[in-house]
């Protein structure tokens, strides 16, 4: 690795930390701007109990002081106790649920990438044939269908009507439908992206040169075309993987999966202050790291990208 690259990474890291600091600060002040208390919602508490709760969560202190404490704790990834789920630490909730989301998300992302690259290349090579048309129609349909609809349709068809797959993710075989519903959209998107990218690359001079040199079609494809065509996929893959592994609220809700997406949205519904702040920061960290990782990957794949 050259020094230019190291300098670039260091710069990007610093920038990420600064972005994170901004997110942390904005989240804190936005949460405190909400005209409500996390302890209002269910039963009307006695004033004494209310006071006690505010003291426990430090909400009785001046805002500035709360902010400093919060920054200190956040730096240690200590998000405190959930204000809703009594007795649970926010960081525990996040790590348990993130594992679930990440597992399903990574599988779905891998399937999406593999099938997208494969089908996209196929469509490009078979341009204007029936195969290409079929792939285009199918991917257009999948990109326009919202995934909650796909998920619910699958649930009714494969679970309620055909009894092939269980409706809850916890049962054996229960992850098939959530993974498929998560993978469909990115798979279709990657297919379309890959198709146009491969088509673009195939017209490039170096491909002609490679063919002219007498390389076999498969070698031209693998060594030159696909490798170069894949760059736009990497751009898309970073945020896609970050998004998909941090949990799709919709899919996790429909298939009863205890993932981070599900718990994050429920935290919002339940005014779970600490959980909202903790998961926002956690999600930001994942998102920022993925973006950083992708930017570095470009360099590895395409030496032409300049970091200076």
């Amino acid at each position, binding site marked *: 690795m050259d020094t230019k690259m190291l300098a670039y990474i260091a710069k990007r890291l610093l920038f990420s930390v600064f972005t994170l600091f901004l997110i942390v600060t904005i989240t804190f002040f936005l949460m405190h701007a*909400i*005209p*409500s*208390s*996390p302890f*209002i*919602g*269910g*039963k*009307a*508490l*006695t004033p*004494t*109990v209310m*006071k*006690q709760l505010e003291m426990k969560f430090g909400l009785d202190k001046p805002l500035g002081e709360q902010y400093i404490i919060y920054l200190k704790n956040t730096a240690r990834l200590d998000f405190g106790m959930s204000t*809703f*789920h*009594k*007795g*649970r630490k926010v960081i525990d909730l996040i790590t*348990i*649920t993130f594992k679930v989301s990440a597992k*399903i998300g990574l*599988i779905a992302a*891998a*399937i999406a990438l*593999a099938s997208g690259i*494969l089908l996209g290349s*196929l469509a490009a*090579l078979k341009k204007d044939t029936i195969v290409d048309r079929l792939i285009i129609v199918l991917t257009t349909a999948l990109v326009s269908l919202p995934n909650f609809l796909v998920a619910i349709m699958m*649930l*009714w068809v494969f*679970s*309620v009507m055909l*009894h092939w797959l*269980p*409706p*809850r*993710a*916890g*049962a*054996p*075989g*229960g*992850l*098939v439908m959530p*993974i498929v519903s998560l993978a469909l959209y990115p798979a279709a998107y990657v297919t379309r992206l890959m198709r146009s990218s491969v088509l673009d690359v195939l017209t490039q001079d170096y491909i002609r040169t490679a063919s002219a040199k007498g390389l076999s*079609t*498969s070698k031209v*494809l*693998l060594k030159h075309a696909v490798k170069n065509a894949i760059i736009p996929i990497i751009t898309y893959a970073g945020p896609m993987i970050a998004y998909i592994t941090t949990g799709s609220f919709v899919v996790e*809700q*429909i298939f*009863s999966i*205890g*993932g981070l997406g599900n718990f994050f949205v*429920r935290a919002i*519904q339940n*005014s779970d202050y600490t959980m909202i702040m903790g998961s926002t920061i956690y999600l930001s960290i994942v998102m920022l790291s993925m973006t950083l990782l992708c930017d570095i990957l470009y360099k590895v794949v395409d030496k032409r990208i300049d970091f200076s």
Partner: protein
Amino acid sequence: MNRKRIFAALAAAMLLFSFAACTGGGGGGGGSVSSGGDQEITLTLGSDPRTLDPALSSSVDGATYLNTVFEGLYSYEESASGKLVIVPGCAEAVVQPTEIDDGKFEYVITLKEGLLWSDGEPMKASDFVYAWNRAANPATEADYQYIFDVIDGYDEENPNLNIAADDEARTITVVTSAYIAYFDQLMAFPTYFPVRKDFVEADPDGWSLSPETYITNGPFKLAEYSIDDLSLVFVKNDNYWDKDAVKLNKLTFGLSDQDDANFAAYEEGTYIMLEPVPVSQLKILKETRLNVDYFIRDYIGTYFIDFNVNASLKPGLSTAGTDAAAWEGWTHAQNAKTREALSLIIDRAYITDEVIGAGQVPANGFIPAGMADGNGKDFRSNAPEWWSVTDVEGNRAKAMEIFEELGYTQDDEGKLTNFPTFVYSTNDNSGNIAIAEAIQSMWKDFGIEASIDKMEWGVYQTAMTNGDFTLGRMGWIADYDDPINFLEIFSTASGNNHPQLGRSGSIGLGSVYGPDADQTWDEYYQTDLYKIKTESDMAARADALYAAEAKLMESMPVVPIYFYTRPSLAKPELKGVLFTPLGFTLFKNGYVEK
């Protein structure tokens, strides 16, 4: 390798990978078939309960879970006539209190012999005393702290409950501050359940989260509480004194509130029971499957609109206001009459039948149907019908007369021309919004313009508590079967006194109540509450209950809309389960019929 081969190889690898991935992930439990011959059931009551700690829980689903794993001194059973009755739980018998000095009453309750906790340790009388002191202590932060206010020595900040245990004699002595007609029910209430001091003190926050530390004394015990799998599993407790009556071996609760998913899992057969039933299914289920596997069960509760009594609706105002100018030349009594007329315009049967359709009962008073008056009668059937729920036209004609008397003017089409506009607040739940829109359009037909303000639940609650609203919807489900539980909402100090009765504001604190408009809310209403809470003669107490409701209906800080029902899906093979009208469910005697 030619192109075709590359694709074939890639495709095969992809398929293999996805197959391995999908089957590899299915290790978790949670999805067993509902109706096994092994007496194991899978069901759902919605999402993850906030807590399983009896001191902290305050939700209806929480009460079901707690009744599954705990047992109080008393418990509930269904009598032969289908009524919910109090029976001894951990106690040997249901006892009568004896009057001691100052109108206080003393209960001496003896525990059954040989009771055990789920880990096999013997239960002690002091376990109850510990649990009650803990829940009443503000440091515990119990939602239901105030439910101990009937015990002598209760104080919100520094409670010193007059309770004592004698572990040798297995007795618990409790002194109540007065005669409490519903104290038996409190002793069956989850906040009064016993807890294990050693485990609670070892981990005050986390003891109720894992089977190793969540030691209980009821028909079942916790086997698994899994956040990632969204399931809560209970198994039969072999140390329970009445274990021979318990037939179910395992209960798995799915923890999700996603309506479509839950309904699909019920239809598919994973769930044997589903509550709450998705709102979108209520009408079709009522038409096609009522009493087959869909049931509209009794539920003691009222859906109502709270009015802020400080908000003046004086004719000619552009918008309802709480400032002095808005009250100039306008009295509280006139404002109350206006609220009554607004109430009379509402077609409640339309709301219950067309807007919701879950068999709710149009309200004709505040105390809900199905509640006893503590003196042997059903309160609602014995109380006046404050307005007709069928003669909507008659009600509306009466409303227009009232409006005319009060100085509201009408145009040729019978629409009011000088009624102030106002805001109808609600939390942003689709059912509540639909009801708000229906009422809004009923009022609009008479020239009364209300706009709807939808708020997030927490924000909404804050606005209501602070009196920062003109009118807003609310609901109340009975904690126990006694009208005081509803009437008390409107005591001055109550946290649910959203109308701001007896509180500062343009009118709330004023001497504006009573027939001569010269009493404060405390003088007018609180006196009845006091009598209800202390009277030991049940007939006299019942009189005070009826009188208090009458005062509420005359002052109209609240417009009741309907009485709740409890829509419930349960497969016919599920038997023996007790669905109480208080909303929680008892699985002790439940079983699956093969």
